[in-house]
């Protein structure tokens, strides 16, 4: 178990990187507390798996340092770092039984058989694998195999961190939910540092205490799920998290007020906005129909279960989405929409205006 510090980490798959674009991971700083549940969230190719492999030691970084509890492990092998990793596809040793699979990491480290037995049985019990211990691992279903992969990480009582690289990719949808809650429950029970890589926001937001959103090899925002939802620091986070994503409208700022289509809109951080390209961001959850406000036309209504998503179009041609609870009336034709001031933010060059805690880029 360890506190993880990632200091100025960069990585390029090229041997002679010169430009910024050559880096798959562009300078990342992170501090992760011991025993926390973290998620790395981002679209495919954003560098999250690269970051994970750097932490696990499967890749050597081009620059920067990785510290476990203040100890520099940048050049240590995965074995020396004492980490565990669960991969996208279940990795099991086909010829072994489930018991032998779980015992394998301990046997490699020369633990004596009696200790192995107690450890394996505890973990098998935790993962509900006890009834299959004597079976050959190759005969299990995908979720069973993935549990074995996870179990091999859990049997070692001293692992510094357990990492998950999109572990639910090959799991059936109805089992995904089960395995995910199992993971969360385990995390709370054993208080081991866990890092979970995914491109699925539901997985990330339900699993992690802290979510690191990545895009284009950079960390765009680190925060709790609530922070990511309420105050996205970058338009990318606004788009990526939430369903549907945040509405963004081009705007100007005059006298500390955001102006959209000639109408003033109150936004908390409008005063901080500078001269860059400005946009106004508002989550569909905080847009309502009103008597006054921006004029718009209702274009489309989609029922997604307990709520409905209404798409409207402003005179300028930009669309604004609203979320309307079931049972509420939806006007048709010409309407007016207004935004909740506390949840309306101004973005300058895609970054939240006036935000000083912005990640170094």
């Amino acid at each position, binding site marked *: 178990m360890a506190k993880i510090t990632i200091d100025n980490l960069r990585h390029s798959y090229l041997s002679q990187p010169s430009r910024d674009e050559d880096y798959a991971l562009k300078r990342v700083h992170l501090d992760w507390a011991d025993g926390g549940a973290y998620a790395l969230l981002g679209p495919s190719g954003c560098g999250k798996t690269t970051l994970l492999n750097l932490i*696990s030691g499967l890749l050597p970084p081009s620059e920067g340092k990785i510290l476990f509890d203040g100890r520099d492990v940048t050049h240590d092998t995965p*074995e020396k770092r004492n980490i*565990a*990793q669960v*991969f996208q596809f279940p990795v099991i040793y086909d010829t072994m039984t489930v018991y032998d699979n779980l015992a394998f990491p301990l046997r*490699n480290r020369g633990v004596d058989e009696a200790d192995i037995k107690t450890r394996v049985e505890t973990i098998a019990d935790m993962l509900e694998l006890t009834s299959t211990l004597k079976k050959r691992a190759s005969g299990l279903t995908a979720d069973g195999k993935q549990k074995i*992969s996870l179990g*091999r990480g859990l049997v070692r009582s001293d692992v510094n961190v357990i990492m998950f690289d999109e572990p639910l990719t090959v799991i059936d949808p109805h089992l995904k939910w089960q395995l995910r809650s199992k993971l969360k429950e385990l995390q709370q029970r054993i208080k081991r540092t866990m890092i979970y890589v995914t491109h699925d926001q539901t997985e990330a937001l339900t699993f992690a205490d802290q979510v690191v959103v990545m895009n284009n090899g950079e960390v765009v925002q680190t925060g709790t799920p609530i922070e990511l939802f309420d105050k996205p620091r970058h338009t990318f986070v606004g788009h990526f998290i939430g369903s549907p994503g945040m509405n963004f409208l081009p705007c100007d700022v005059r006298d500390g007020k955001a102006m959209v289509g000639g109408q003033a809109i109150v936004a908390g951080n409008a005063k901080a906005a500078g001269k860059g390209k400005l946009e106004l961001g508002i989550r569909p959850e905080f847009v309502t129909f009103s008597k006054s406000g921006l004029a718009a036309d209702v274009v489309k209504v989609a029922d997604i279960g307990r709520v409905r998503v209404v798409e409207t179009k402003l005179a300028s041609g930009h669309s604004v989405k609203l979320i309307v609870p079931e049972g509420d009336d939806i006007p048709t034709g010409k309407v007016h929409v207004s935004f909740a001031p506390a949840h309306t933010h101004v973005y300058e060059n895609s970054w939240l205006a006036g935000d000083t805690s912005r990640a170094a880029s």
Partner: protein
Amino acid sequence: MNKIQNNKAWFFVIPVFILVAFNALVPLMTVVNYSIQETFGNNEFFWAGSTWFSDILKSDRFHDALGRSLVFTAIVLAIEIPLGLGIALCMPKKGPWVSVCLILMALPLLIPWNVVGSMWNIMALPDVGLLGRTVNALGIDYNYTRQPFSAWVTLILMDVWHWTSLVTLLCYAGLVSIPDAYYQAAKIDGAKPLAVFRFIQLPKLKHVLTIAVLLRFMDSFMIYTEVVVLTGGGPGNSTTFLSIDLVKYALGQFDLGHAAAMSLIYFLIILFMSWLFYTLMMREETSP
């Protein structure tokens, strides 16, 4: 539920049946026909029953040839399978050397069998061949045209040279298809290289190795061309394998009934051995 009886689908099997009949069953039945009759030409046949079969099964000549074939195959498999696997494990997995290695490995496979025989025949000649001369110059008495042992060594060397590549290429294909995650997981689990080989590479190569063993068994058990060109079955009868003996009966002595019965026995041995190898190597798959 009512089960609908509809056997019209069998019509679709007819083309395949005809194809199989013409390329396998009909020729095979011809051989069966010869094997139970005696003929003196002129298209006259006399019933012989199982005479040919019992003659062969009792004959020392057959036992010797069968023994030689089995020993040869056993030696060849014992060398080529581990060697081919070893070479495949040493080959680079990526980079410009991959294609160089693959081409080098594939070269022996592209050479016609009789050319392989001629090459080794000339190379191993004790007076003018590069190999034969060198070995003799080293003080080792080597002459494959006179010493059975030299002849065997030459044949085995030739077969290893010719066919190890096949095993290598099959194993290599199997190796590169193992996902990286397995090696990474093994690294994280602290597995030593030997354990990686034992628990990841070998189990993942099981299928290609089975195919390699089957192919090499069948080919080496039926080896003919190279041996005929290199030693012609000699010196004496020391390299007269089943295939060569069979041709001697069929074309040398024109003993068609005998040869036909021998062909069938030969065929059944190969069929049985292939089944045996396959079942033994695949048996773990089915057990729970």
